């Protein structure tokens, strides 16, 4: 039986690190899934991504979030990185995210990512983000903050990339 759901790579940080990358992503799956547990030591900051090392203004996103006491929503267009979630600065591994990247090998469509994420008692987030490029995704880099990076990801943060086959 063909394997539907397969780990491609996993990274656990042994020290504070500026970014995490998955490179040479096999083109043999249909969709990708990234599972992460992370934190940072500085103040609240976004967790962002780039595909294929593209730092151009080719990303956009919309998010909806709850913070317990209220809700919020926002968008950004023509950004230099896409958006996954937001961490706190408590130095703990309290942020979890789950990103689905659909049809990542398709060379006729822009690439969309949907993320569910949060930090208990602080934030829960639903994000859709787009990369305006029809190239297949061959690498993914994750970093903290719009400066890509602004701060480091803390030691103990984990990231796993899974491939999912439709048939």
């Amino acid at each position, binding site marked *: 039986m063909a394997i539907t759901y397969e780990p491609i790579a996993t990274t656990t940080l042994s020290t504070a690190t500026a970014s995490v990358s998955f490179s040479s992503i096999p083109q043999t799956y249909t969709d990708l899934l990234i599972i992460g547990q992370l934190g940072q030591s500085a103040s609240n900051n976004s967790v962002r991504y780039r595909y294929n090392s593209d730092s151009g203004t080719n990303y956009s996103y919309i998010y909806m979030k*709850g913070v317990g006491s209220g809700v919020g929503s926002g968008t950004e267009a023509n950004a230099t990185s896409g958006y996954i979630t937001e961490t706190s600065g408590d130095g703990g591994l309290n942020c*979890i995210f789950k990103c689905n990247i659909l049809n990542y090998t398709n060379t006729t469509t822009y690439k969309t990512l949907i993320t569910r*994420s949060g930090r*208990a*008692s602080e934030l*829960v987030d639903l994000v859709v983000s787009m990369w305006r490029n029809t190239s297949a995704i061959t690498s993914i880099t994750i970093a903290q903050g719009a400066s890509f990076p602004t701060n480091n990801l803390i030691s*103990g943060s984990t990231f796993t990339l899974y491939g999912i086959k439709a048939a």
Partner: protein
Amino acid sequence: MPTTYQAIATVTVGGGGAATIQFSSIPATYTDLELVYSTRDDRGGTQNGVNISINGSTSNFTHTGLQSNGSSVSSFNIPRFVAYNNGSTSTANTFANNAIYFVNYATSNNKVFISDSAEENNASTAFILIGANRWGVTDAITTITLTPDTANFVQYSTATLYGIKNS
């Protein structure tokens, strides 16, 4: 290659109903867990809560939720709250669709998990919910228990626990 996504156990509620749905003796051989469940309870209402306990504990939980009922969006913090059930006065034969993803459940970090819930009802009120949760205990998760608020799960409620390996 070992199976990445593997069913550990399934619970199907019988004719007498059930006060809880529980998974115990969870092996520590996976990286993450995913609990997928379709449930209804016997209490009147269309917004009946489901709570979680882990390893028999109802303490040290924190949460942030984001929900919509079709006309408004709200956020709140209710520790242990993970889903809505269809209650006895909701549309007949309709069960809520829910999922919980536990990352790194067997490590010595605090346990963080994302909860999703969709409680459809062919009426003016239904609910969709996402939650960020944390159990602030470093023990591995060995037991997961779901309990409806002041109710019992009804027959045909089902739940399956999957183990996910990152290598």
